[in-house]
């Protein structure tokens, strides 16, 4: 039998359910005969795997030096103020979870962030405000 790639299994579940719930971890554990402690261990090692329910939009703001040189800290502060949360939290309306990542490889278009995996580059506070507005609108329709 071909060895299964656990990371892909975990991603698939997360794609479907938004995060890796205790229930899903138990199911994966049974199905693939992997101790649940190990699944939790692996899931918490990787920052893009989540073990808690996430906002509808997961924002990952790049924290690389290239982005810092291009004022990503202003974006960070704006996001925290606008969404009334700190990095690592989910907004009260359940729409946004915000994280900081090491580098998303958009250094030539800094500052940048990923929203649900899609890159948004050359950010300014004004542009982030617009993006959030659009996402809010989309979420309501």
């Amino acid at each position, binding site marked *: 039998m071909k060895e299964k790639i656990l990371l892909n299994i975990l991603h698939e579940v997360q794609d479907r359910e938004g995060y890796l719930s205790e229930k899903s971890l138990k199911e994966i554990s049974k199905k693939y005969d992997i101790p649940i*402690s*190990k699944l939790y261990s692996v899931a918490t090692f990787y920052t893009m795997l989540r073990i808690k329910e996430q906002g509808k939009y997961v924002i990952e703001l790049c924290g690389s030096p290239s982005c810092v040189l291009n004022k990503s800290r202003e974006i960070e502060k704006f996001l925290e103020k606008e969404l009334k949360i700190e990095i690592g939290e989910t907004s009260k309306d359940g729409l946004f979870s915000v994280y900081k990542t090491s580098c998303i490889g958009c250094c030539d278009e800094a500052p940048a962030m990923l929203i649900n995996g899609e890159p948004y580059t050359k950010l300014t506070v004004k542009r982030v405000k617009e993006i959030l507005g659009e996402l809010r609108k989309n979420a309501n329709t």
Partner: protein
Amino acid sequence: MRISVDGKRLEVDGEKTILEICKGLGIKIPTLCYHKSLFPEARCRLCLVDLDGKLVTACSTKAGEGSEIITDSKRVLKARRRNMELMNPGANISELSDDFEAREIYEQVGLDNERFKPIKNYLPELGAALVRDNNKCINCGRCVQVCEKIQAISAVDFASRAHNEHVTPYNEKHLSEIACIKCGQCLINCPVGAISERSHLKEVIKALENPKKHVVAQTAPSIRAALGELFDMEAGTLVTGKMVTALRKCGFDKVFDVDLGADITIMEESAELLKRIKKGGPFPMITTCCPSWILMMEHFYPELIPNMSTCKSPHEMLGMLIKTYYAEKAKVNPKDIVVVSIMPCVAKKFESTRPELNTEVDYVLTTRELGRLIKQKKIDFVNLEEQDFDPTLGIASGAGDIFGNAGGVMEAALRTGYEVATGKRLKSVEFGSLRNFEGIKTGSIKLGDKTIRYACANGGANIRKLLKDKDKYHFMEMMVCPGGCVGGGGQPIYFDEDVLKLRSKALYEQDSKKELRRSHENPIVKEIYKKYLGKPLSRKAERLLHTRYRKRDGF
């Protein structure tokens, strides 16, 4: 292969790691994460040595032809100290009790500076058997490896990464909420005491100080073979008599022998086996002395519940008899009796909280806790005179003594089972095939025209392995700790498996020196059955000495 170590040229085995080579040369290299029976992950990085000008971890590195190793240069010593300084400033290793390896390593490395503040901030977990404090943890990973590889339970693993990396059950649950079998092998392998037993010492001392209480100690078979180590006596020294004297000096009113409980267990268990042979099953019948095995079965193999013997464990049986038979006999109100079991085990602490047992055991102390109590009372243990157990419940057969060894329960059961079933006398009561240090031992014996096949496993992984073949056997003994109770989670911390062999040998010696080596010939056992219980599996015996089990969640 020729290399040089600290300037000395020598011929060495190229397959050995630098750590092993140095150990052979008598050079002590400090390490906290290395363990002989585990994979060297090279996490702690205290075992640094200079290999041809580069600092490498001795535990994970092999030398090459002609290489030069320096183990004690200024650079090496300083690098070790820096890692010690970083390791966990909150752990206060300097205040650690002598029980743990880190104490000695700490002194060897010699911390010269403490320039960092602790960054860990975890809530300690207080369980019925184990206490876990991640603030003391140095992330050596031995508990994780033991739990996964030796015990095949995987109750804990690392979570998160970088400075947030920590050991935890899944989803940050407590050990008490998950399928942890509380064997305490994590504790035995923890170098810094981040995992410790739930102590009952305070409660016991309080009872001892209360003049209205009649406090009774009962000691498990394997305590006498290990307690001496806590007082720097050689491993494998039998200290039965000193132990009894020490307990009396600590203030216990009576000191009884769980080995007698073991004899009674054998009476019940062998009767149960013979009954099943008559009835035709269910087979295999499986022993129930090990509370961690019971937990393992309930969590992971609940389908085996009908296979389990219904016998309570020896100290639970004796505890019950102390508050019934003995209380009647000594005319003491059972309510005033406090039963304290001295056990090699942390799971026994959990066991006495099981409602199914209607336990009469009030507190459980580990061997280490007893050691602490004796030290607190400033008793000069090594030079104590030797006294005997209190005779009412203090005479045991050699069969009871060997319960502390993996394979011992099986051997004891076979001695009695054979002789009761066949009416013949065994020529030799020693079963050689059960006395080696293998993880799985098997054999067969003829009972009349029936061949009874038996098997024993010790260590969780071996139990899982043996269970795959369970249908081949009629009778199985399961001990979760490697080596059986001599290697229990409540025993003195040991660093070398040879220690277990010495402890085990001591118990076999105690057995071989006795005239009385068969449980069914123990005069006290005979008296208890004659005057109190009737016969094995009588209604009274069933009510007092037997129990039941339940299915538990597999996660």
